[in-house]
């Protein structure tokens, strides 16, 4: 009998034993730090991948806020869908609890990635031929980090600066804010430190999209321009040196003599590599911009969501073909308001009668693209056309390049003109910068009137900036730094009601949306309430 006991005991023991050690102790299919920053890989392949991922934290542009473009929170456009989250910017509902463009976490994620890269890249034993590349990468990581700080600073003002720290769970995470000046200083110092270490422009075809020397200079240019502007430079006197710094920074890009305006405004945004782009958020080819913004009546063979409704205010900003404002030009015909406009108008805005996908856009009341009823449709009589390929006579969309421009040369010219005009008045360089843009636009004549005053020139530059850079996430920040948001975003934004009367069209402006802007608090974003409660050393911005 006893042998049964032994049999059972043996069996049980065997069962226990044979299950041992037949599984991995930890999952060996998971990447760990030593794989990414590989101490045996002399080309640093995965380390490179880690850096590239950091690029994906750059602003993505286009319809990024609940299907809407950031311009729909400015006086350039409104969202076609009612009750879109982006309306919070114009109806006073933005708050520390609710901000549809909260970029706090995204940019600190980018900063962490850059810092991890910088902290660990030294572990990778690059071979001699890779050292140059490695140094480029380090400079790129630092550029990206500076760019992420800029994204934070323009929204929130001063934010906590982390330097090279990679924060851990055991750190004291109640980090106080640095001042705006410290943050700006940090970004500028970084830009200066890396501008020589970055790739020179133009880069090879394969490296297109890398942060280059010009990108660092462009970042500096925009930052200094912002900092010279009324919002940040309240007590500025005439010839304020900050304007000079800004003008010099822009001139530094111009002096590279690498960039020029792309010949055609129409193909500028769908040409991946061109002479104008300095840095863009790189994306695969696709049709998402077309799908999201094509007038709704085209739905069926294509997706046509028509999310963006440009305002009459923006339409009015487009001059006539002769370079004069519509209300000062003989070319303007109130019964036919869309002919003979600035050629950029037709590449920026869908208006009634513009040809698209083999038919004319119909935004008259009851037309295919403004059918009435509850379906999402334009609220202003216009749709956004910019960035799209030319599908005038196609039946469906084909994939297009839709890189989102972060810096392009036209902005540098505009930055320069604005700063130079503020610092020393409308000199010949200012004239040339603006006229170059107007020439490329196709205005005849493109030349500006002679002997403009500084104030007149300021208005022209601001106007040019608005139409040239429409929907490129510039106006939203421009009306803030110029401190004009309280004027242009208070009251009403308008649309054009087009009524078909037989074959005649009757045009009538109407109030499309009520907007409000609460100055001064809305000139900066509130720090997210959740961050304030999690970090008691973080002080909320004034007014919020």
């Amino acid at each position: 009998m006893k042998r049964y006991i032994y049999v059972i005991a043996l069996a049980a023991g065997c069962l226990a034993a044979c299950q041992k050690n037949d599984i991995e102790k930890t999952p060996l299919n998971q990447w760990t730090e030593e794989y990414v920053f590989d101490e045996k890989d002399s080309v640093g392949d995965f380390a490179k991948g880690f850096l590239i991922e950091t690029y994906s934290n750059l602003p993505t542009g286009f319809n990024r806020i609940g299907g809407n473009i950031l311009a729909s929170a400015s006086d350039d456009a409104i969202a076609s869908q009612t009750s879109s989250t982006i309306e919070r910017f114009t109806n006073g509902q933005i708050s520390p609890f609710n901000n549809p463009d909260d970029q706090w976490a995204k940019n600190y994620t980018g900063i962490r990635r850059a810092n991890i890269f910088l902290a660990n890249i030294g572990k990778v034993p690059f071979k001699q031929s890779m050292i140059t590349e490695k140094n480029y990468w380090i400079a790129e990581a630092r550029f990206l980090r500076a760019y992420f700080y800029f994204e934070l600073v323009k929204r929130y003002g001063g934010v906590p600066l982390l330097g090279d720290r990679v924060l851990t769970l055991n750190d004291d995470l109640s980090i106080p804010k640095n001042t705006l000046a410290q943050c700006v200083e940090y970004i500028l110092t970084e830009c200066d430190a890396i501008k020589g270490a970055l790739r020179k422009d133009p880069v090879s075809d394969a490296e297109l999209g890398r942060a280059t020397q010009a990108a660092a200079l462009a970042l500096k240019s925009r930052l200094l321009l912002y900092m010279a502007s009324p919002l940040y430079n309240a007590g500025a006197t005439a010839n304020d040196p900050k304007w000079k710094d800004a003008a010099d920074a822009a001139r530094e890009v111009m002096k590279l003599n690498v960039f020029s305006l792309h010949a055609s405004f129409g193909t500028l945004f769908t040409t991946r590599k061109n002479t104008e782009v300095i840095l863009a958020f790189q994306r695969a080819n696709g049709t998402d911009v077309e799908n999201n913004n094509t007038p709704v009546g085209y739905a069926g063979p294509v997706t046509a969501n028509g999310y963006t409704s440009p305002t009459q205010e923006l339409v009015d900003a487009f001059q006539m073909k002769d370079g004069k404002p519509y209300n000062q030009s003989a070319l303007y015909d109130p019964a036919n308001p869309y002919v003979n406009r600035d050629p950029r108008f037709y590449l920026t805005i869908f208006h009634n009668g513009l040809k698209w996908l083999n038919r004319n856009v119909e935004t008259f009341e009851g037309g295919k693209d403004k059918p009435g009823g509850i379906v999402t449709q334009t609220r202003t009589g216009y749709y956004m056309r910019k960035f799209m390929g030319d599908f005038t006579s196609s039946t469906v969309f084909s994939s297009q390049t839709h890189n989102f421009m972060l810096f392009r040369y036209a902005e540098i010219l505009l930055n320069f003109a604005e700063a130079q005009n503020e610092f020393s008045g409308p000199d010949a360089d200012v004239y040339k910068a603006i006229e170059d843009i107007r020439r490329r636009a196709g205005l005849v004549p493109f030349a500006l009137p002679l002997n403009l005053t500084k104030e007149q020139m300021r208005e022209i530059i601001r106007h040019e900036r608005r139409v040239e850079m429409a929907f490129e996430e510039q106006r939203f920040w421009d009306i803030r730094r110029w401190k004009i948001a309280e004027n242009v975003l208070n009251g009403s934004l308008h649309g054009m009601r087009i009524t078909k009367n037989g074959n005649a069209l009757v045009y009538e402006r109407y109030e499309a949306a009520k907007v409000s802007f609460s100055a001064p608090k809305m000139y900066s974003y509130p720090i997210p309430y959740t961050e304030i409660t999690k970090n008691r050393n973080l002080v909320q911005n004034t007014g919020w």
Partner: protein
Amino acid sequence: MKRYLKKVMYLKPRHELLFLQLICLGLIPFSGLAQNSSVRKTQETLLSGTLKGIISDIYGEPLFGVTVLNKSKGEHTLTDRSGKYTITGEPGEILVFSLNGYLTKEVEVAGQNLNLSLTESTQTEKTFNSLYGPRKKSTSIQSYADIYSRELAQSPTVSYLNALTGRLPGLTTLQANGEPGNDFVGASIRGVAPQILVNGIPRDLTSIDPEEIESITILKDALSTVMLGQRSSGGVILIKTKQGEIGKQKVSFTAQRGIQSSTTIPKTLDAYNYASLFNEALRNDGKAEIYTQADLQAYKDGSDPIGHPNVDWYDEILKPSSIFSRYNLNTSGGGNNARYFVSVDYLNQDGLYKTSDENSYNTNVNYKRYLLRSNIDVDITKNLSVNLNLFGAIENGNYPGGGGIYGALATTPNNAYPIFNSNGSLGGNNDFQNNIWGLSTRSGYTLSYNRTITADLSLKRTLDDVLKGLFVKATLSFNTGLGDATNRTKTFAVYKQTPNAAGEYDYQKFKVDGVQNAGSSTNTAQNKNLYSEFQAGFDRSFQKHHVSALLNGNIQNVYVNGPNLPLDYKTLASSFSYDYDEKYMFEVAMSYSGLNRYLDNNRYGYFPAVGVAWNISKENFLKENVSWINNLKLRASYGKTGNANIGYFVYDQYYTDGVGYYFGTSATFAYTKTESSLANPNATWEKARKLNIGLDADFFNNTFNLTVDYYKNRFYDLMQQRGKSASIIGNTYPLENIGITDYRGLDLQATYRNHINNLNYFVSAIISAGSNKVIDQDEVFREYDWMKRTGQSGSQTFGYLADGFFQTIEEINASPKIAGYNPVPGDIKYRDLNGDQIINEFDVTALRSNKPMVYYSFNLGINYKGFDFSALLQGARNRTIYVSGTTEWEFQNNGLGQAFEHHLNRWTPATAGTATYPRLTVGSNVNNQASSSFWLRNGNYLRLKNVELGYTLPGSLSHKIGLSSIRVFANGLNLLTQSEFDRVDPETIGSIYPAQRVINMGINIKF
């Protein structure tokens, strides 16, 4: 007969009904006869004054120990081993036959020979199933509750879990989905998800037929579960399947067929009302109306069904009812050396979707289940026995190819589009490209297959030859499950029909008619589970001292997800219990348990529990003085349990593929690497300290039983993200051992069981009351106390306190408002808690009551001469439902959404006094749809959960055709529901397949 029944098992579905009808028809003459047999009179006249007979169960097996009482004389006797008895009895006197576990029978003496068969009752047993074997109820300290096969089978449900609702104190269920194949309830024990054990082995099986289950026991306190180590915190559902018993072969066949229908269907607005209210909402928004008087008229009179459709989607897409059928055949028996229980089960459940003749395939939901079980015990020698349990399940599901049908039903307005255009094409438009009829019938279908096999082998050796009372046992078990699916879906086109100038119609096409996919996805679900266990036990009495000890070591490998490494549990557990004369009881149990998901040096946890009990009724002062108390046991247990709520090797920092980026003129995708969420090298198991105080009592000759348990459980080291998770760190925070939550409550079960002559009856009440409270969760800074989450229930909802509707402009001007929102009369008014004249986050507070949630039920059973009836009422108190979203609010999704009958009671200037709903608006509304107490509804309900009526033919009749017993029955599930919030089923809320009402009929044959 047996062969015939086996054949029936595999009849095609359309034959099932015919078969059932034949059986029912065949029964009518029998039931007519049955009414004649009232009080049974004995036929023979022998020596007057004495009476003899044999008492057996319905299978003819003699019953030992039946009490035979002559009511008139007060004499009584017991039956012997062969079921025989002798007693004095004159004609006209009443004899009472009773045995624990059987229905009591009273018979009038009318002769001198009286043979009877007794029917099993739901009477409680003397033992219950503890974690590793049966225990005596009388000496148990553990907190448990159990239910037996008979009661389980009363509910016409697919999963045994659904049959537990309202039947076990401490266990609560929630049925959140009613779709066949997905309708399992979520069960929790004392507020926490339990661990399921089948025949002593941890595994999550939901598809076990109630007919093959002998009992389900829930274990509730630390003492009863602590031996599970890392899985001991949540309570246990312990399923024991039937085993064969010594005796002649028993065969039981059950056929049943039910009709299922939805308990409630949302009441949507017809097109006319919809359009009218829509216009009103637009006016409220300051916008132009979009429906003209002509439109409204067309909706009203239906004169233009294409241009102005009015489609009752629920009516058009769903059938009023569907069929559910099930067959079970099982047989058991055995001799001295071997015993067996074998069961086969087939179930076929249809869904509610209408189908179309144009398809050669089925697009309705359908769920078919085939189960096979074989449990065999063999005594190899006197001391060595082997037990082999085999189980196999095949579950096949069929689903329409288009998903989200219930979502579309709930959100598509009746006037959205016609089902069909004039030319027969599917209607639709840019906003509605998923015609629901297209979703349900023109999207192809998806088949899902799931297969499960389990096998348990155990050897048990009693070692009485070494030491009396000692045994060892070894168990090896595995189960494996595999799911795959065949995707035969396709896309369909819809067309918007508009009249053109030529007097014809234009059809604008959206999407395309696709061919069917021929995809198959293998491995949609996979699990492998290997378990081995070694056990040694000792159980012996020394005079009045009784000692029992158990040592258990087990290893389990659980593969739950294809490529992942298995969970590797290793547990060493032991228990020791002692009682003195069943009067003073003491038990200690513990486990040392580890899991491979923790760092090497921090892998094993120690979990102890202890309990004591005192049976006061055994004390002489009570025993001698208070005769109506049969049993009164006080017990208490306390212990520390564990729960391995750990992610996938979270202690190491991992990197993963990033989203990638594009460089170069050719936009080459660059593969990237990025950090996964932050590692937590300190992660350890969650723990609980559980206190249980209980009382077991039997009064009045054991007719009244009461069990009450109070528990206070502190769960701590709960895995959660830290509150102060500032995003400046730049990555996702890991779960850390932070949270502390207290659960406390009361479980009560009271049963009264008695008989009036031949009417056996019982009434039973069950209460499971419990609440939980967050003690710590690393809460972030809150400006005001009312904002704090700590101290509230874990399932608390936070929002504004609603204060009715704004009635006038003056009232609005004088009131605080949400920033950026300009209220108008008819909007919801909120309370400004901090008095800053703005309604914002600082005015958010707890909305629900923290009162304990009470689940209660009443169970009633009557048995009278072959008739049996039972009813289960089940309800919940202190329950609240938060309603929101597309199924509650009007014109959601930017005005494309549905509206419902409750919107007719909206606020308008005319109805300001009686309105129950705010003024209507289109799309989202920042003010009215803010999280607030306005949307909190009373979630209390009371259901007639289950009723069963059965009739067992008199044995004399069934014996004539060679059967032991024939029982016909009808039962139902969710028959009536009374709830204050009655627009939807109180459990299935939202746009999902609702809970089903089932009315079921069947027959059970035993031979």
